[in-house]
C-alpha cells in the first residue's frame, strides 16, 4: 500500500463552509416552520373524537367517509368493527362540537336508516405524547451512550461530530415534515429511530477509515488533515453510496407497494437515509476536519509562543 494521501480524486472538504451554510439555512427554516406552522399531527397525537356508528348491516368504508364529508366534517379514518362487521368507527383529528355531532347523526341516518346509533368518545392524546417524549429522551440517552463508546474506541472529536450529524439528520426530517405538512403518526417515531441507527453506521464507517489512515499519516499542516479526510471519504465512497442505495431500494419498495398505512413512515425513512449518507460525508467528516485543524493551529500557536 502506498500512503500518498494527497492522491485523492475529489476534494470533499474544500467547500465545507457551503455545506454548513446549506444545513444552517435548512435548520433555521425548520425552526421557523416548527414555531409557526408546526407539525401536522395525526390522530395519535391530538385530542380528538371517536364516533362509533352502529349501522346494523355491512357497509362500505368509503361510503361512510363520503357521508361524513357531506356532513361538513373531515374524518381522520374510518374502520370497520363489530362481530357482524356492521359498526363503523370514525376517528376525528379534532374534537367535534355538539352541533356537528347532530349533523353527523342526521347524515348517517339519511344514509343507513333511522336505526343507526352513534356513540361518541374523546381520544386522549397524553399517551401518544408520552411515547413521543420517551422516544426523544431515549434518543438523547442513546446518543450519550454512543458518544462514550466512540470516545473510548476512537476519540471525542469523532464522537461529537457523529452525534451532531445524527441530530442534524433527525431535525431535518422533522423540518421537511413540517414544511410540507406531511402527517406525523405514531410510526414516525419508529422511522426516526431507524434513521438514528443508520446515521451512526454511516459515520462510523468513514471515521473508522480516517482513524485507520491516520496511523500512517503525520498531521503537520492543515493540508495534511484535509488530504487524509479526502482520501478516506474517497475510499469509503463506494460503500457509502451502495449501502444507502440498497436500503433506499427496500424503503422505496415499501413506499410504493407497502400500502397506505406505512407510506408516511417509509417517506420519513427514505428522507432520513439520504440525509444520513449525505451528512456522514458532508457534515460529520467536515466538522471533524474543522475541529482538528483548529486544534492543530492552536498547537502551532502554542509552540510558536514557546519558541518566542
Amino acid at each position, binding site marked *: 500500500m502506498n500512503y500518498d494521501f494527497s492522491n485523492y480524486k475529489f476534494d470533499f472538504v474544500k467547500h465545507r463552509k457551503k455545506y454548513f451554510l446549506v444545513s444552517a439555512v435548512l435548520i433555521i427554516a425548520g425552526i421557523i416552520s416548527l414555531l409557526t406552522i408546526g407539525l401536522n399531527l395525526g390522530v395519535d397525537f391530538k385530542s380528538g373524537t371517536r364516533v362509533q356508528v352502529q349501522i346494523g348491516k355491512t357497509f362500505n368504508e368509503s361510503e361512510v367517509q363520503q357521508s361524513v364529508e357531506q356532513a361538513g366534517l373531515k374524518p381522520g379514518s374510518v374502520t370497520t368493527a363489530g362481530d357482524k362487521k356492521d359498526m363503523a368507527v370514525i376517528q376525528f383529528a379534532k374534537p367535534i362540537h355538539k352541533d356537528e355531532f347532530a349533523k353527523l347523526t342526521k347524515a348517517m341516518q339519511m344514509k343507513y336508516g333511522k336505526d343507526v346509533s352513534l356513540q361518541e368518545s374523546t381520544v386522549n392524546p397524553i399517551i401518544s405524547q408520552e411515547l413521543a417524549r420517551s422516544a426523544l429522551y431515549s434518543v438523547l440517552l442513546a446518543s450519550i451512550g454512543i458518544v462514550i463508546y466512540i470516545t473510548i474506541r476512537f476519540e471525542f472529536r469523532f464522537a461529537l461530530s457523529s452525534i451532531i450529524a445524527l441530530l442534524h439528520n433527525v431535525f431535518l426530517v422533522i423540518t421537511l415534515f413540517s414544511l410540507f405538512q406531511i402527517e406525523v403518526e405514531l410510526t414516525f417515531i419508529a422511522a426516526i429511530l431507524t434513521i438514528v441507527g443508520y446515521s451512526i453506521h454511516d459515520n462510523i464507517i468513514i471515521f473508522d477509515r480516517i482513524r485507520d489512515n491516520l496511523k500512517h499519516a503525520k498531521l503537520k499542516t492543515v493540508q495534511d488533515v484535509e488530504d487524509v479526510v479526502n482520501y478516506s471519504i474517497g475510499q469509503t465512497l463506494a*460503500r457509502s453510496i451502495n449501502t444507502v442505495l440498497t436500503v433506499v431500494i427496500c424503503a422505496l*419498495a415499501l413506499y410504493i407497494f407497502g*400500502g397506505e398505512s406505512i407510506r408516511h413512515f417509509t417517506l420519513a425513512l427514505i428522507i432520513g437515509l439520504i440525509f444520513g449518507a449525505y451528512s456522514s460525508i458532508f457534515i460529520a467528516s467536515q466538522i471533524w476536519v474543522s475541529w482538528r485543524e483548529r486544534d492543530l493551529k492552536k498547537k502551532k500557536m502554542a509552540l510558536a509562543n514557546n519558541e518566542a
Partner: protein
Amino acid sequence: MIKWSRLVTLLVIVAVVFATVALTGKKVAMGTTLGLDLRGGFEILYEVSPLDEKQKVTKQTLIDATKALDNRVNKLGIAEPEIQAEGENRIRVRLAGVTDQEKARDMIGKPANLTFRDMQGNILMSGSDLAENGAQGVLDPQTQQPVVTLQFKDPKKFANVTQKYVGQPMAIFLDEQLITAPVIQQVIPNGTAQIDGQKDIQEAKDLAAILNAGALPVKMKEVFSTSVGAKLGQEALESGIEAGVVGTLIVFLFMIVYYRMPGFIACITVVAYIYLLLLLQNLMGVTLTLPGIAAFILGIGMAVDANIIMYERIKEELRSGKSYLSALRAGSKRSLGTILDANVTSIIGALVLFYFGSSAIRGFAVTLILSILVGLFTSVAGARFLMGLAVRSNLFNKPSYYGVKERDIREL
C-alpha cells in the same frame, strides 16, 4: 486446478440453505405472532386508582389486577391477550383479532363484586364464598331459561343462611346493581344457588365468566384506546410482505451485478438471515409489529452493509495486487473491526432504547438487537466461510468475478 471438494461443499451448503427455507420457510413465517397493527384488534390503556382511601396502588396490586384481567380476557376466549403493567399505575391490554370492542371493553373493565343481601341490605355472603369456577352459565333444565348457577365453597354456610331467611327474598347484587331477588323457598343443603333473568345463554355465560374471574382489586379508567380494522391490518401485512419481497429481489440483483460472485454469496446469507431472524423471533415469542418490520428492514440493510464493507475492502486488496486468497484474508480481517464498531454502536443505542423506551419502542429495540446479532452471524461469519470455500475452489480466479477491472490492479 479446480478443487472440486471445496466447490461441492459450497454447493451443498447453498442447496441445504435453500432447501431448508423452501421446506420450512412457510411454517416459520406462519408461526410469527403478529401484533395488533398487523392483524387488527384493539388496545386499551387503563389508569388504575385505589378502590377506597385505605388502599394504595402498589406494584403488587398492579400485578394482581393484571392477573385478574388476564383471567377475564382468557375466559372471553381471546387468543394471546397481552396484558402488561406499565409504570406506576397503568395497565395496557392488547387484544388482537377482537372485532367487538364494546363487548370486550365491558368484560374487561366491569367490576364484579357479587353479594347476597337480606331485606335490610346486610351482606350475608359474597363472591369470595364462591367455589373455584363455581359460576356456570347454563339453560335451566326445567324452564329452558338461561341462568347462572352458583356453587359455594362451604355448603354448610349457605345452608345456615337459607335456614335463617327461609320464606324471605334474598337479593343478589352485582356491585350496587340488583340482579335478582329470589325468595328462598326452602333450606338449600348442597350449596348451590341460581341467578335468573339472563337475556340469553351467551349473557349467562359472560356473567359466569366475570364472576369466576373475581372482582378487580382496583378501579380502572380508560385513558387511551386505539383500534385497527382486521382488514386494514391484513392489508398492511400483505402489502408489507409484497414490498419486502420486491425490495429484497432488487437488492439481490444489484448485489450480483455490482459484486458478482461475492454478491451472490451475500444473497444466500441474506436469505439465511431472514429465515433465522424469523425463527429466532418465533422461538422467543417476539410479536412482530410495524416498528418491528422497520427494525427488520434496518437489519437487512445493516447485514447487506456488512457484506458491502467487506467486499469493498477485498476489492481494494485485489487492486493492490494481492492474490485472491490473501485479499480475502486481509479484506475480511480489516473490515471486521469496522463492522463490529458500527454494529456495537447500534446495539448500544438499541439497548438504551430498550431500557428507557416505552412499549412500541421496546419492540423496535428487541428486533433491532436480534437482527444485528443474526446479521453478524450470517453476513460476517457466514459470508466469510462461504467466500473462503469459493476462493479456495480456484473456480473464481479472475478479477471480473469480484467486480474488479484488470487494469485497476497495481503491481505489488
